[in-house]
């Protein structure tokens, strides 16, 4: 994608007119307006960094899903839809929904109930300060690296759409994100994520409708895909052998269920603070538990307007057809160009402006999510709990504002690091295997095993990360013959297994924390009563039950799988 969008300006340049730019400008006006208005509501560091724990569940739920629905995800998943067809839905239905439900039902009572303000702070309560600090530093570095990827991709889009050079586009994009996050803190980021959610739908829905219209409806699409190079196999989700690169259908199904459905997705959704932070800002335990489950509903339905346009791109657009016939890049065009090419070919002026606003919004939200979570971890876990403890709340609020500025400047730097990577999706997958899988390993062990010690936690965390980096190097230097995608999966699995193994070994040598200190932090030591929540006032009503919503979303996924089996 890097090289592609950079060279192929003329080919991808959209024919936007004055009305389109006006619609984009109006969106930016609202975004900055939200930042300005949210400023009125920031009077403490908790307001700035955790929205004062005041958000209703529908807002945090949509922000939860939007923080993940960045443009990298959009472009990457539409590209997968073009390349693999229906099997791409596994990334959503098995790779996200079960983990989101697990987060809401099982883990949120511990996160929200412990009053921890961040994932590292939770680790401090369950384990010790060393674990908190190590995870704090790792998370801060990871956030800035990933924010840089989003910023770089945003710069590429601006370059492609408007013709601005990257050296101008990247700082300008950073400035807009900086403006609204410094003004309004997490509230502004979350409100903009919700707004972004709707604008992205206003990009995807017309694209899908017009696309289906052009290929002759669903039946026309089925006919054309069957006749195409992928064949009828691309119309069914199972066994997904093409996606997993595992020829044996049984092993392929096992790979999808355990690899994608367990190690990768649970690691990402349950411990990634950029996600968890949205739920922590909810106004009550019940709202916090509902946050990921409410987010799961749109997550289950989004592939209908992402994967289907991807498949349409592969049968409708001559450029993508050529890519598919050749099995790789043709004239600098790859599957990653599906989204922008579809926008160019299918959307007339007017709705095109809305679509451009949606695409820009998606990149900004991805970066804002990383910056706002970096902010919280740096201010609370590194600055307040370690480097400069015991100052006034006003002082930490100021620190939070300055850290936002510094974070954005650092992200401009990491954006240029990302520009050196050949494939942004591979780069980001490798980062996830380094940072998320080891954290998930010690997290899950610590939640269910009361004998796990603090020393075990940070040693397990570090050895898991070392394992993932080692696998990455082995793949990079061709010692292990794997594709990049399979490489990051093996890396994540190795990180998980090494993390759990080392932590278990070290724990047997040390003395566990007293049981009284672990109430509310370990499953078996937490009475059932304190794992539940009130059901009165704003949390009353059967439709606000997290369990019921969880069952409904799981049924929805099963029904969708039956339709697209």
């Amino acid at each position, binding site marked *: 994608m890097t090289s592609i969008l950079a060279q192929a300006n003329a080919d991808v340049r959209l024919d936007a007119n004055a009305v389109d730019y006006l619609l984009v400008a109006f969106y930016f006006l609202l975004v900055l307006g939200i930042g300005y208005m949210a400023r009125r509501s920031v009077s403490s560091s908790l307001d700035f960094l955790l929205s004062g724990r005041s958000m209703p569940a529908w807002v945090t739920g949509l922000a939860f899903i939007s923080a993940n629905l960045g443009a990298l995800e959009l472009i990457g998943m539409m590209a997968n839809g073009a390349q693999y067809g229906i099997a791409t839905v596994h990334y959503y239905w098995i790779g996200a929904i079960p983990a989101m439900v697990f987060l809401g039902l099982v883990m949120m009572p511990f996160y929200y109930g412990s009053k921890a303000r961040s994932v590292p702070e939770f680790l401090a309560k369950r384990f010790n300060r060393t674990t908190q600090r190590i995870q704090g530093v790792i998370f801060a570095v990871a956030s800035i690296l990933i924010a840089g990827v989003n910023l770089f991709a945003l710069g590429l889009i601006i370059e492609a759409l408007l013709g601005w050079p990257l050296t101008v586009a990247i700082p300008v994009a950073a400035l807009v994100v900086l403006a609204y996050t410094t003004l309004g803190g997490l509230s502004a980021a979350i409100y903009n994520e919700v707004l972004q959610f709707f604008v992205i739908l206003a990009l995807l829905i017309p694209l899908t409708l017009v696309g289906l219209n052009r290929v002759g409806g669903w039946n026309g699409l089925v006919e054309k895909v069957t006749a195409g190079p992928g064949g009828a196999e691309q119309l069914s989700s199972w066994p997904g052998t093409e996606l997993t690169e595992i020829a044996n259908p049984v092993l392929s199904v096992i790979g999808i269920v355990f690899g994608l459905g367990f190690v990768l997705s649970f690691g990402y959704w349950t411990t990634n603070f950029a996600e968890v932070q949205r739920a922590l800002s909810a106004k009550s335990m019940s709202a916090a538990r509902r946050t990921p489950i409410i987010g799961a509903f749109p997550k289950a339905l989004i592939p209908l307007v992402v994967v289907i346009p991807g498949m349409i791109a592969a049968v409708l657009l001559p450029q993508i057809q050529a890519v598919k016939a050749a099995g790789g890049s043709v004239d600098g065009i790859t599957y990653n160009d599906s989204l922008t090419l579809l926008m160019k070919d299918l*959307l007339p002026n007017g709705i095109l402006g809305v679509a451009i606003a949606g695409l820009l919004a998606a990149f900004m939200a991805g970066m804002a999510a990383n910056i706002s979570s970096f902010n919280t971890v740096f201010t609370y876990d590194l600055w307040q709990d370690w480097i400069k403890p015991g100052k006034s709340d006003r002082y930490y609020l100021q620190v939070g504002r300055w850290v936002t500025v510094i974070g954005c400047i650092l992200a401009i730097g990491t954006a240029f690091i990302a520009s050196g990577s050949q494939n942004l999706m591979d780069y980001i997958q490798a980062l996830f295997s380094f940072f998320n899988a080891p954290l998930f390993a010690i997290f899950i062990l610590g939640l269910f095993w009361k004998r796990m010690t603090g020393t075990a936690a940070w040693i397990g965390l570090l050895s898991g990360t070392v394992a993932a980096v080692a696998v990455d190097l082995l793949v990079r230097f061709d010692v292990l013959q794997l594709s990049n995608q399979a490489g990051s999966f093996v890396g994540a699995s190795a990180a998980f297994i090494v993390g759990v193994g080392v932590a278990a070994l070290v724990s047997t040598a040390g003395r566990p924390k007293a049981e009284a200190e672990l109430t509310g932090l370990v499953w078996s030591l937490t009475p059932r009563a304190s*794992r539940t929540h009130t059901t009165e006032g704003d949390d009353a009503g059967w439709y606000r039950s997290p369990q019921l919503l969880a069952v409904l979303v799981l049924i929805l996924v099963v029904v969708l799988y039956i339709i697209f089996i």
Partner: protein
Amino acid sequence: MTDSSEGRDAAGTGPADAMQAGTDAPPSAAANLFDLRTIIAVLFLVYGLVLLIMGLVSTDEADLMKTGGSNINLDMGIGMLVVAALFGGWVLLRPLTPPTAEQLAEAARDDRPAGH
């Protein structure tokens, strides 16, 4: 429509300010946020109107070629106006109200760390 719903927000958040004044801890002002539903309604009202007008006055042959014959600006314009009306209606039916003392106490109880 815009003005009246924003006026309603301002009216709704005023009393909460007054109620929280005078507490020891820095009062959480985030509970007094402006109503996001109004912003969503305004966004789609403006987008819907622009698309509706585009669909009615400036759809030419080239546009219809792109879309395979449907007037997508007109359709999406109408769709967005419906979304704007739904959010606007939600704001009017369930305006933001400042939390009562009872609800605040309940929230504090719900927030208490488990087992501490």
